[in-house]
């Protein structure tokens, strides 16, 4: 089993996809010959030639080009370098890609995958730091996933590519060059969907996704030291969202904290809270608590960013607050 960091796992998945799907093509800005600004696509051009190419700085052409190629039999894998740049071409994913199958009653399909990355890193400006997963998860017809580990960076990307519908896989820049971990690279490609219980627990359920998983693990460890058993669920996919796994956990623990890097209002945490209110209201022993960025624009200076972006301390505080409510 190779030891891969997150971005190398993405790279390995791209190589495997190009190998296994002869109809796959891959393109994006600085994607082919430069190998991607984060090296995610390194080596693809050398190995797969004209099936991998660089594009103009034209997000609408990249996404529209992917749709047109997809409805004509290709399986495009494209990169939108920053999720913030997706906004200049949202028409192509929301109005165009997401409608292809539904409106044509399945006569046309758009099996395309868009990889992008997001999140706050020290010094990232307000137009390079947003967490926008809720925008995509709001659009019926799209598949949306946020891998948090090297294994998921590999597995979930392949699942998205293999799916015959438009998929948005949102990576997190802070994870790319994290620690290496053994990654199984020869397993079957799983269908999209399904949360993972990263840590079993009895007292409170903590749901998160993407880069916030690391902070959530730290928070769960802190609470364990304090004698509180946290069940930590990595949602992985927001669309389709695995409501059943979260519901089963809350029915056991009676308490729920949801943590994400996106700002709180309209964040996907609100959807999770609403679903659990529907599915498991009578199991709840305390109000649901959401942890996220306060509703604010995002500053560039690291000291300012640290004052806003939630981490393990904020999650731990929310967990303590939740378990303190008497049953």
């Amino acid at each position, binding site marked *: 089993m190779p030891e891969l960091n997150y971005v190398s796992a993405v790279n390995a998945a791209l190589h495997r996809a190009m190998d296994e799907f002869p*109809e796959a*093509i891959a393109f994006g800005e600085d994607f082919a010959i430069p190998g991607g600004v984060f090296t995610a696509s390194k080596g693809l051009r050398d190995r797969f030639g*004209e*099936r991998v*190419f660089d*594009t*103009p700085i*034209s*997000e*609408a*052409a990249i*996404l*529209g*080009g*992917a*749709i*047109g*190629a*997809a*409805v*004509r*039999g*290709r399986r*495009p894998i494209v990169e939108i370098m920053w999720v913030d740049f997706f906004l*200049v*071409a949202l*028409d*192509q994913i929301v*109005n*165009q890609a997401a*409608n292809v*199958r*539904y*409106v*044509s*009653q*399945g*006569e*046309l*399909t758009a099996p395309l995958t868009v990889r992008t990355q997001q999140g706050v890193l020290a010094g990232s400006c307000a137009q390079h730091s947003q967490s926008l997963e809720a925008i995509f998860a709001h659009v*019926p*017809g799209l*598949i949306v996933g946020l891998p948090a580990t090297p294994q998921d960076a590999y597995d979930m990307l392949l699942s998205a590519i293999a*799916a*015959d*519908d438009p998929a948005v896989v949102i990576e997190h820049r802070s994870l790319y060059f994290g620690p290496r971990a053994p990654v199984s690279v020869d397993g079957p490609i799983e269908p999209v969907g399904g949360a993972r219980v990263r840590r079993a627990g009895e007292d409170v359920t903590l749901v998160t996704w993407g880069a916030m998983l690391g902070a959530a693990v730290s928070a769960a460890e802190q609470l364990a030291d304090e004698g509180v058993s946290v069940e930590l669920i990595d949602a992985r996919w927001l669309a389709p969202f695995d409501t059943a796994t979260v519901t089963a956990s809350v029915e056991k623990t009676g308490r729920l904290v949801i943590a994400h890097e996106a700002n709180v209002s309209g964040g996907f945490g609100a959807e999770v809270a609403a679903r659990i209110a529907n599915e498991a209201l009578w199991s709840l022993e305390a109000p649901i608590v959401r942890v996220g960025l306060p509703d604010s624009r995002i500053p560039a200076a690291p000291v300012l960013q640290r004052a806003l972006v939630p981490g393990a301390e904020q999650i731990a505080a929310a967990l303590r607050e939740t378990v303190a409510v008497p049953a």
Partner: protein
Amino acid sequence: MTPTTTTTPAAAPAGPAGAALAGQFAAMLRIRRFEERIEKMRHAGEVIGSVHLCIGQEAIPVGARAALEERDALFSTYRGHGWALACGVPAEALFGELLGKRTGVNGGRGGSAYFSAPSYGFYGENSIVGGGAPIAAGAALAARYDGSGAIALTAFGEGAMNQGSVHEALNFAAAFDLGVIFVIENNRYSELTPTKDMVRDDELWKRAAAYGIPGVRVDGNDPLAVRDAVAEAAARARAGEGPTVVETMTERLVGHYIGDGEAYRQEGEVAAAREREPLVVARAALLDGGMSADSLEELVTSVEAEIDAAAAAALAAEPADTTTVREHLHA
């Protein structure tokens, strides 16, 4: 390719040009009668929702489709009924779509402004101005890998030339020599606003030069002129020489949508346009070319009978199936 009309013109003027014009007259008339029937259905409340008619612009789809092959992919706009008919999509399935019937080409999911029929090479209307241009470039990109030799055509109004997506598509296609034909249907209005007031230079075909590709402007009321320009562009596209801009000059004889009060029109503008619209011109050319008035009348009657029958069948069809309304969201 699928015939553009089921009518075989009787006693057309002599020679291949005469026969082609008679066929194209019938195809244009078929679109006109379809659109007129839709207008009646809209006023009668049988068709619901926003409808954009192509009355006056019929020569463009008819001429352009005549220059393409069955393997090619065509992308139009919400003013796209004529393009679908020109691709051979049965009128009954289009009436059905606008009437919200189960027999509609998309079972009522597309409506007037956003239907598709890929088995006819019609990859669909698009109700976002300029939204289809990058997708057409992608269809041409696919052909680079599949060995099909297919090309793509995207048609859009001249107002779309001010959309960023169209600029991106033109540059993308030009940079990679993609086989796309960009057909501008220039009816002089960006929806309700004169296009000449929205640009510094209203000769939009000239913009092609900025992308390093050929651009031409032709009479969009003459199906043979459109056909010839598109054929030349298609030959370049199929030879791997890249995209072409074909600006077709026409006039919309009706509003932007059914119900448009057209307060923006100049006095006498539409009346003047009616004297040079494609059916008037083609009819005169056929008669001048020696077609008898009786033969022409026979042709008209047969097209009208076909449209009447298609409309009647669509009206009689079952409403769209509500039990499947949530299906086909995902594989």
